[in-house]
């Protein structure tokens, strides 16, 4: 019985941890928005912006990935 509650808490916790991925998503969206606006205004900077955009996406995505890691740890390790 207690084991089941702990198991349920793990799942709930894992799900809650993934809420943090929202921030990562917003971050990715905003960085892409900025890059797209920049590209639309000045198409010459396409290559440069693309590289930096992908870097920025990777950084903001890392936040979401941390949430995912926490979620996995809750599910698999704890």
């Amino acid at each position, binding site marked *: 019985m207690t084991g089941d509650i702990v198991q349920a808490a793990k799942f709930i916790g894992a799900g809650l941890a993934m809420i943090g991925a929202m921030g990562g998503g917003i971050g990715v969206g905003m960085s892409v928005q900025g890059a797209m606006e920049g590209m639309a205004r000045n198409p010459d900077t396409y290559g440069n912006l693309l590289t930096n955009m992908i*870097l920025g996406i*990777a950084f903001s*995505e890392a936040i979401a*990935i*941390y949430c995912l890691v926490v979620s996995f740890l809750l599910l698999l390790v704890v």
Partner: protein
Amino acid sequence: MEKSRKWRWGVNRWWVLAFIILTVIATNRFAPVQQVIAVAPENLTKSPIITLPLVGGLYLTNTEVAMILMDLIILVIALVVKSRVKEYTLIAKGFTGALEMLIEVLYNLAQSTAGKWAKKIFPLFATILIVVLFANLLKLIPGFESIGFVEEVEHAGYTAVSLGGNWFNVTTPEVAEGGAVVVPFLRGLSTDLNFTLALALISVIMTQVIGVQAQGFGYFSKFFNVRTLFSRPIFGVMDLFTSLLEAISEFAKIISFTFRLFGNMFAGMVLMAIISVMVPVFAPSAIMLFELFIGLIQAFVFGMLTLVFMAMATQGHAEA
């Protein structure tokens, strides 16, 4: 314009179709099972290979086998480059030419970021990038995470069907107790926390080393700033606190490095494991391509971050 709109019957689409049909047949014949998802890499040896005094028993894990494979590949490439670089040519060509181009691009990147310290930083930066790149890409080779020992477990598992000899196919039906699971020989190197933690430690520690080389021991005043503590008491205390935060951020960097790479790669592995069970036809290919992209990006990010942190360490703390 008109030409691109014309429908042409290429040969590649037939290959794709044939492979899809083959996948359908194969998944019907041998139902795919979800592999064991564990954060820790599995030990391949029952008993430790060597027992070190302080550390304890050292097992051979499946990520270490992948590591040895990666080492071999890098070694071969290095040998090829070493043998070919003697014959100097003005025009880069072939395999060495491609590698040369990569090195040149990386070196230019390092030079534009780190300036005169590029020569010092470049080997570390490039090695981290190359190692992470190979580790990430090797994961995509078929056979990783799917071929291995069949291990009898006490908890839920699958049934092992004999294929003749010592070969077994672990497949459905699922059994609640005393089933068999696969302990793969090879597992993606980046899904091992030891690997990412090792790289993160090296990156952060070498950043401090380069900072000391560039600025002397004054570099550490960045982490424990007492210079303004007595001259300007209130701001001095604030400076001390911010410098302590800097010190903490160095440890945060280690964790961030570790889990960024591990999280990306492990998530990819989990995704692959789940998708290949749920939608075994065609979908894993798309995920595979996405994993390739993620692998490249993560390698680049790891390398770039190392480079940027090292360059920042050489430039020193901006004095107010």
